[in-house]
């Protein structure tokens, strides 16, 4: 199978080094303001520091893909005697909570690694090195784009038979503008 090279960018989060200053939240919201840096508001940030100083909990978490529905159950971690709040490590904006949503509109947000910058701004502003950027090159298999479609079609063929499927495609292509 053919392979290609891909740059994988990872933010390494060393929670042990976090001093809890929340500069990452501030600069994230400033970078994503329109126009850029025109305002800031940590409540809009795509990173949040789960921060409970007296329990020594300092955990930067990044916003990931939005979840359409909440999970069937929730999780709660205890690590080294420290109990983290419910769903603390989850990256998803989710109907169950207000994290990673615009505070006014409720629109979910997601970390985009600060597109166009050398490195994410949270990393640049974290000079205590709790957040660092690691880049590596990986050989990845070239995925054949057809594959997924093939699987879908095969299941349709199995259900309806090949002729019915061909007829349906012909009907659709002659009557619908979307195939033009």
């Amino acid at each position, binding site marked *: 199978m053919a392979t290609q090279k891909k740059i994988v960018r990872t933010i390494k989060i060393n929670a042990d080094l976090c*001093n*809890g*200053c*929340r*500069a990452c939240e*501030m*600069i994230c919201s*400033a970078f994503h*303001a329109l*126009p*850029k*840096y*025109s*305002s*800031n*508001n*940590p*409540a*809009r940030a795509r990173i949040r520091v789960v921060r*409970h*100083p*007296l*329990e*020594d909990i*300092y955990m930067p978490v990044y916003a990931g893909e939005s979840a359409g529905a909440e999970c069937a159950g929730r999780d709660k971690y205890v690590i080294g005697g420290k109990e983290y*709040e419910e769903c603390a490590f989850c990256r998803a904006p989710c109907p169950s909570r207000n994290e990673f949503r615009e*505070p006014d509109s409720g629109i979910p947000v997601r970390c985009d690694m600060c597109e166009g910058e050398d490195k994410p701004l949270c990393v640049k*502003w*974290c*000079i*205590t090195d709790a957040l660092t950027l690691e880049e590596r090159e990986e050989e990845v298999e070239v995925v054949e784009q057809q594959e997924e479609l093939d699987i879908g079609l095969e299941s349709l063929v199995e259900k309806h038979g090949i002729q019915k499927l061909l007829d349906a495609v012909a009907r659709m292509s002659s009557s619908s503008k979307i195939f033009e």
Partner: protein
Amino acid sequence: MRFAETGYNLEIDLTRGNIERVATAPEDSALYLGGLGTNAKIMWERVPPEVDAFSPDNLLVFGTGLLCGTPAIGCNRTIVTTISPQTQLLAFSMMGGFWAPELKYAGYDKVILRGKSPGLVYVWIKDDKVEIRDASHLKGKGAVETAKLLCEELKEPKAQVAAIGMAGENRVYFASIEQSRSSASRGGLGAVMGDKGVKAIVVRGTKDIHLARPAEFMHLCDEVMDYIKFRGENPIPGVIPILAVLGSPQEMAIHDEKWHTENFMWGNARVRRKDFWSEEIAREWTRTMEEMRGRLISCYNCPMHCGATISPPGKPTYMMKCFSKLTYTMAAFSDLAFGLGIAQSATEYGVDGYSAPQVMAFALELLEAGILTENDFPGMPEDSEGRFYWLLDHIVRREGIGDILANGTYWAAGQIGKGAEKYAHNNIKKQEQLPLKLSMLNPVYFLMYCTGEKLNITQIEGQFPQAAFPAREDREAFVKDWFQVPDEKFKQYFLDWEVRGEKSIPSYPTPEMCCDIVDWQERMHYIDDALGMCAGLSSFHLKAPYHIHNYPKFISSGTGFDMDEATLTKAAKRYRTLVRAINTRRGMRRKDEKPPADHWKKRFPELEKELLDTYYTFKGWNEQGIPTEETLRDLGLDYVYEEFLKRGVYSDNGAAPSQAGPAMTGKEV
């Protein structure tokens, strides 16, 4: 549209339970900036000199700095002002932490409390929703404990809480307001908060703070960030460790306390222990720190590590701040383990870490001298540590002798009498100072101690080296990259300053040079206090990332105001003069402007008179330290001049009546 600031204050009348969101005048921000500057304007306009600290008409103003909530690194301070029960003058103390930015994000620049609540309450601010809520269930609770309980009660883990402990509730004159890993401690602000019946102010904000010219502002932030990194990698040679880098790393990160323990006085600012620091003590104290210290932490948007969580054996975890690390240890002639332990109680009770230990050491001296007797201390343990815990508990509850001691050494000495006054020896304007007793008068420090209205030397000193460097080549090296100076002449002052001989203290720097040096150092602190900048990245430090050359750019690109070095210098002079005017109107005169009599062994009355005369003239104040008509008019403070005339301030020649008794004693039941 307003930039950097929100343009709104929150006015809360506790007597009537009324809350209003009030738009502020943009012109005031341009003239007085924010924080201390606009706080002072409010105090001048609304708190006449007849108003006592514990009057409902006294205000307690929580003012965020002008640049708090912007990306400016380390800009997170709340400036709290009121009339102090202890000094009866304007009290202003700054706290870092996270509260100021949170208030900005909630949409307010200040919270102004007036009146008195009939019962104990807390204020809950969530963006546009503001409530006064019952706090009777929090009575007697610790300040840190209160913050935790309120976040849980409100289900708002991200809310920021400024709270008082038992000391504030019982109006101890040196009660603090505690918040996150910081506190506003000086001048008894916590006592006024307690008198108003407010246990805490809880804030959560989710709104935007805007910048006028974002690209320019961010470029300045990048420069500051680069300089912080540079300074961290290149400590300044030739100065003590705490001054060689930024922040205040000696607090929690550095174990070598030779300088503090051997140069500061122990007990009631009495005993110098020149050979105290030994290898054994270094080992023991390092072990203590390693056993109790958790993580090194910082305030909002700051890469420093000035604070730490501390877990003393058998006690809850708390966040240590500032020099409290050593003040209890040294007052009690004890060790670090004791100091870190009792500071946990002191933080929960909410007391000033400078005043509280000295008041306790003062009480024990009075006992030793026979002025107080065993009968005044029923049930007090025999050992020094036990005695300090006993005294602290009695002071914050105002029980027995604690009720008198809770007024601080100045007022307590007056109430006790029998010669107790001479034991209250370390005060300026009735407030306890750092326990420093030195040999030769330092003319720069003389002026700062006399005329500083922040009543805390660390909040006025910093930009200029504290002592001459012995070797000329070291001085030359020091001035080489000293771009922070407002004028090249400061380099020459320092280059010519010798350790001995003609050009050494007390006659050098000359009175004229001292004026320049004091004025520069004071100006930078006043600018920080209006912007909300931490002195640890700015005015407290030699060669800081923030200075008179980049501040005007920060302000103008942040707020959109026209600002250059001259305008900024004049603005700082304007509200600095207004602070003095408030105190002048309250009776402060030349007679009040002196260091503790025993601060230096070698004194020079003629030189000291010349220094003060020269400095008053330099500042545009008359021989009583009162701003002159010309000065006031030049600063646009004509309204101050009119008021001074009306009140006959210029004619009283220093004989202004000082109030004879403390503001009010006794605990409120």
